């Protein structure tokens, strides 16, 4: 699968796809909110759409779900060209959470299930079970307006899952959740994937994508410059080498890569394409006196900067300075 022509082949072409979108374009008032997005989501994967606000994440998800139609491009969800044809197999948690304030929690969950084809009676029974499982059994018959914001969000997440969907789409699911509930949601997403459910979510928090995702699509300015596995994204940037030598100078320095920079006895540079062995040989033969050597693989953040650009990365950091640090 590949997000675009530049994205490397990650070897998932043989895996059945839950979502496949090609060349999605959506314009609002002439402005291209989404401009030629390609996305392929393997079945059973946890897939993240990573980008700053305004990058086109929500619009992309809305097109994939059939809430709005693309101006051009194609999409297939669970094998159907029209998303509503498989609506009973999909769960969706929008970015802007919403429930009827006067409805009881159990009825709100059953109603969302009924929209997805689950009979109301079954929906109510499952709602009670799920609320119990999540420690909210005592609130089953309370009106939504009587619940705290966090509880209401949990009720909505349960509503998203009550009909046991094969594909779950979360739009910025961690926004507004405290650390404890973020952890719960991460576990829930992993549990869903473990049962073969495909999970796709949008986020502007790299840490969530890095921790959870098998694959990501990096989106900026309505385009997807990269779509593929997190490993492949990280491999876009050469690993960083930190070398500590006893000698300050010598003939061995000529063997260091051109981007090597010196800080005291430490040298920092990208791992050469030829690998570390020729360099080590040159250092030993040149009597550099190697005190320590570490090779660090690039993080998703570095990959994001390299792929989406500094501006997009700064926007991402500005939106979630606290969450980024987690």
């Amino acid at each position, binding site marked *: 699968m590949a997000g675009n022509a530049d994205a490397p082949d990650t070897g998932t072409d043989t895996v059945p796809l839950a979502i496949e979108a090609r060349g999605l374009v959506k314009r609002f008032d002439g402005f291209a909110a989404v401009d030629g997005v390609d996305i392929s989501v393997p079945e059973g994967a946890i897939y993240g759409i990573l980008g700053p606000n305004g990058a086109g994440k929500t619009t992309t998800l809305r097109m994939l779900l059939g809430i709005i139609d693309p101006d051009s491009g194609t999409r297939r969800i669970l094998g159907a060209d029209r998303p509503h044809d498989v*609506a009973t197999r999909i769960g969706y948690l929008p970015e802007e959470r919403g429930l009827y304030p006067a*409805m009881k929690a159990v009825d709100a969950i059953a109603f969302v299930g009924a929209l997805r084809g689950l009979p109301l009676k079954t929906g109510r029974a499952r709602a009670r079970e799920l609320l119990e499982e999540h420690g909210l059994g005592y609130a089953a018959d309370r009106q939504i307006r009587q619940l705290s914001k966090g509880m209401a969000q949990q009720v909505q997440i349960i509503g998203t899952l009550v009909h046991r969907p094969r594909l779950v789409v979360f739009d910025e699911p961690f926004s507004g959740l405290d650390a404890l509930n973020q952890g719960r949601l991460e576990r829930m997403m992993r549990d869903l994937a473990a049962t073969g459910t495909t999970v796709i979510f949008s986020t502007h928090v790299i840490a969530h994508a890095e921790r959870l995702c098998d694959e990501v699509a990096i989106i900026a300015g309505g385009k997807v410059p990269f779509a593929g596995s997190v490993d492949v994204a990280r491999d876009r940037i050469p690993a960083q080498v930190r070398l500590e030598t006893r000698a300050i100078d010598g003939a061995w320095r000529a063997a260091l890569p051109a981007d090597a920079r010196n800080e005291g006895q430490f040298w920092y540079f990208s791992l050469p394409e030829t690998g570390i062995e020729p360099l080590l040989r040159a250092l030993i033969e040149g009597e550099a006196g190697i005190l320590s050597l570490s090779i660090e693989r690039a993080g998703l953040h570095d990959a994001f900067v390299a792929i989406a650009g500094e501006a997009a990365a700064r926007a991402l950091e500005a939106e979630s300075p606290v969450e980024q640090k987690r």
Partner: protein
Amino acid sequence: MSKSVETGRLSTFAAAMVVARRDFTAILFSRSFLFFLLGPLFPVVVAVMAGGVGQRVQTSAETPRIGIAMSGEDALRMTTARDSLAGSAGIPLPDMRVIAEVRPGEAFDARARLAKADTTAILSGTPASPVLTGPQRWVEEWRGPVSLIAAQAEGNGPRDYAKVETQVVVAKRGESRSGRLKTAQGAQTLLFLLMMILAGMVLSNLVEEKGNKIIEILAAAIPMDAVFFGKLFAMLGVSFVGIAVWGSMVGALVLAAGSALPSLPAPAVGWPLLFALGVVYFAMAYLLVGSLFLAIGSLATTVREVQTMSMPVTMLQLINFFFASFAMTEAGSGLEIAAIVIPFSSPFAMLARAALDPGLVPHVLAIAWQLVCVVVFVKLGSRLFRKRVMQSGPAPVRQRRKLLSRLRTARG
């Protein structure tokens, strides 16, 4: 791509019913619905009371009258007898006035005189052998009082009443139609009033939905058409509940105050069918206007915006009502056909037609046409909604500002 195609969706109707059930229950069991039900009853009570006063005024102004065509002396005896009995007879006596002095032996054509329509019936002959000519209803109703007045005029006792000869005149088609026009007008006005009271409910519904941010969940799960239909069905159901409650209460008031319904001439299709068609045409009119209001409601984000944007539609409803009312008086003309074809005036025009014309085939065609229009309007509304509303980011704000600015300019 996945090889196995999994399918699963609710039909549009099933999806609409999920939405309709939720909306219907939520509205019906809300506290505000009670106030909504009671609200229009206050003006109705006032109207009934005022109507009672008005009816008395109208009754005195338009009391059916007997025209006397006798010799001067006989006519004077009859009117004197009538006046002397008034108040003591114990029964209501018809108003009488002399319309012609007939010399003995002179022929008088009562039927021709009735055609002038300035009297309801004509009393000719003599007090000893009076002849009452007029429509069946009045001849039967007045035979007794006329006999009593004639006996008084003759100075006879209660056991020697004059025998009143009667001549029944069948009402002409024109008179019958004129009466039915009143029925048609009444039906149209009632339909219009119900529409004005109830159609506004649809307006605020989607705004509330957007306030609750539920709309995206609905739009993701089911087609927008189904959302719109569901909301319309729910509101229609709520309207019927309202109409049933109001109808029962008004009916009780009317029964208590004395039946007002019989004073309207029977419609051409008969009362039961007129009521049935009234229900159908109310539903059609509601769905048509409701679909328009839903489209407006979907574009607005606040109640204030809704009020601004719905004003032209409300004005359109008024124009529509006047148009249908006027077209009713031009039966069979191009104007009436236009009123029937234009979707928003069609239910009004057809309800009037039901009162005036017994044919049923046009109703079948009109209802089918109105249904098609409802489906088209809902489809257009939902398409507009998907196109204009479901955008993230700042674009919708810009568009709303643009739209409101345009509206303000247009109003200014």
